[in-house]
């Protein structure tokens, strides 16, 4: 159904709906006494992380294990090889070991796409540079649908550091595909160039947008990606763009607040707002497992879902020796 999961842009509304429907059923497994089904027995999934991650890596690992796949965790932190070479060599090693799926996070945009040219395994993008983080976008759509019943016609505001955010690119594309209206809100320095081509509204006034918002999506201020100053101080950012109890009160009845994590409490969101009843932040984490199970289930089935045999014939073995 889905050859690789690289970008939200590749997914149609029907495909997204199929992923969310499957996730809805798979979520029930977490409530059972035995939180495991045998579906992916014999499949091997490798978590290949060239960047730090807590929830995404653990979430993918749990998702694969609950479907009975074997999981290898490869963390490239501390590796001294240059990035392009390092990725290719690692990919060929995994190929030679007969891995069926590679979950990859990389600082370079497009690295997962590049991987698909080197390996037979299915590739799932777990975040590449500023480009995409499709499973985050899917779990957000799942959470919105679960809580509000639908996505079509909702008004969503995506607030903050859109410029550095792969999450924003995935979430905004997903929301638009599913028929929501999206407004991007943030200081001009943190909005990407050509944001006008995204098909969204753009605003620099959070307080004006809040009363017309069903889904308030806060982005993390990515201080580690900021080589230069994008705003004067965290305090000023919090005052103008941060969400506290007062701003929450301006949302319409039934609106929800989301954040992809990890949060900078006191910057983009205050502690009491993050823990408010309409905050979906913990639910997003819970739902991430079901959504990633759904992606693995839909991608790894059939003869097609198994990578070629180790030391196999033809192009495969040639590639390994190359």
């Amino acid at each position, binding site marked *: 159904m889905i050859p690789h999961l690289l970008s939200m842009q590749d997914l149609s509304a029907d495909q997204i709906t199929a992923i969310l429907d499957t996730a809805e059923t*798979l979520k029930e497994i977490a409530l059972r006494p*035995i939180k495991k*089904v045998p*579906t*992916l027995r014999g499949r091997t999934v490798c978590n290949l992380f060239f960047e730090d991650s807590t929830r995404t890596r653990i979430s993918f690992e749990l998702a694969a294990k609950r479907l009975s796949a074997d999981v290898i965790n490869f963390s490239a932190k501390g590796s001294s090889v240059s990035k392009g070479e390092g990725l290719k060599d690692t990919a060929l090693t995994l190929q030679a070991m007969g891995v069926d799926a590679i979950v990859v996070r990389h600082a370079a945009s497009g690295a997962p796409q590049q991987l698909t040219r080197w390996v037979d395994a299915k590739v799932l993008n777990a975040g590449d540079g500023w480009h995409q983080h499709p499973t985050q976008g899917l779990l957000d759509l799942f959470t919105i649908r679960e809580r509000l019943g639908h996505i079509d016609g909702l008004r969503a505001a995506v607030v903050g550091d859109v410029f550095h955010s792969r999450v924003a690119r995935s979430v905004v594309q997903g929301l638009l595909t599913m028929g929501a209206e999206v407004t991007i809100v943030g200081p001009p320095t943190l909005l990407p160039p050509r944001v006008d081509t995204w098909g969204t509204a753009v605003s620099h006034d959070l307080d004006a947008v809040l009363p017309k918002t069903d889904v308030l999506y806060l982005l993390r201020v990515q201080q580690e990606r900021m080589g230069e100053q994008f705003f004067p101080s965290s305090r000023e950012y919090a005052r103008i763009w941060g969400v506290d109890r007062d701003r929450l009160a301006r949302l319409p009845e039934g609106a929800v607040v989301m954040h992809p994590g990890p949060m900078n409490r006191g910057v983009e969101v205050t502690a009491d707002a993050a823990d408010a009843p309409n905050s979906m932040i913990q639910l997003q984490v819970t739902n991430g497992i079901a959504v990633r199970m759904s992606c693995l289930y839909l991608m790894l*089935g*059939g*003869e097609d879902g198994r990578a070629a045999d180790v030391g196999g014939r033809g192009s495969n073995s040639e590639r390994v020796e190359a």
Partner: protein
Amino acid sequence: MVVTVPTEATAVLTDTDVARALKRMAHEILERNKGADRLVLMGIRTRGIPLAERLARQIGSIEGNEVAAGSLDVTLYRDDYARTGPRPLGQTSFPAEVDGKVVVLVDDVLYTGRTIRAAMDAVMDYGRPQAIQLAVLVDRGHRELPIRADYVGKNLPTSAEQEVRVHLAESDGIDEVVVATAPASAASSTTPRVTAASPTTPATARRRA
């Protein structure tokens, strides 16, 4: 949708036959288990579900107390995921805890036994039942695993080329069991194909165009 294949379709059970069979099976289940106290009826998706509900109603009317029926989707436990790929998932819902209970699996047709193997594995993941039993409306033979039914509506010797179709009022508007003998080249229970269909069917018209 099942494409109409020109076959000798013979109705082997009518609505009255189905009703009688289910009534007898309800009595047999009660007799064997000495009452309905520990029973949990689990219908296997899709046509096992209405059958389980009917058996539960039948048992309830005989015993005078409620018997719960649930639904079981075995897709995640099937042995053909690696061959044929993912299928759409359905909901599983147990009406009660299974620990110490007698779980009666209910399905429309017993054929290779592979679905039942998957269903037993699924039930075990929800607890430790005292026993698992199997009730089917039709047993058509051709087992590929050492599995047999405890309660059978009708034993129906068939050949592998034949197709057994169970229609139920809940999903098909009518209760009946039909055996169809498809032409050898078109015989397939999962992918009915059109080979020499009557010229009036649209599928044939398109194919000839």
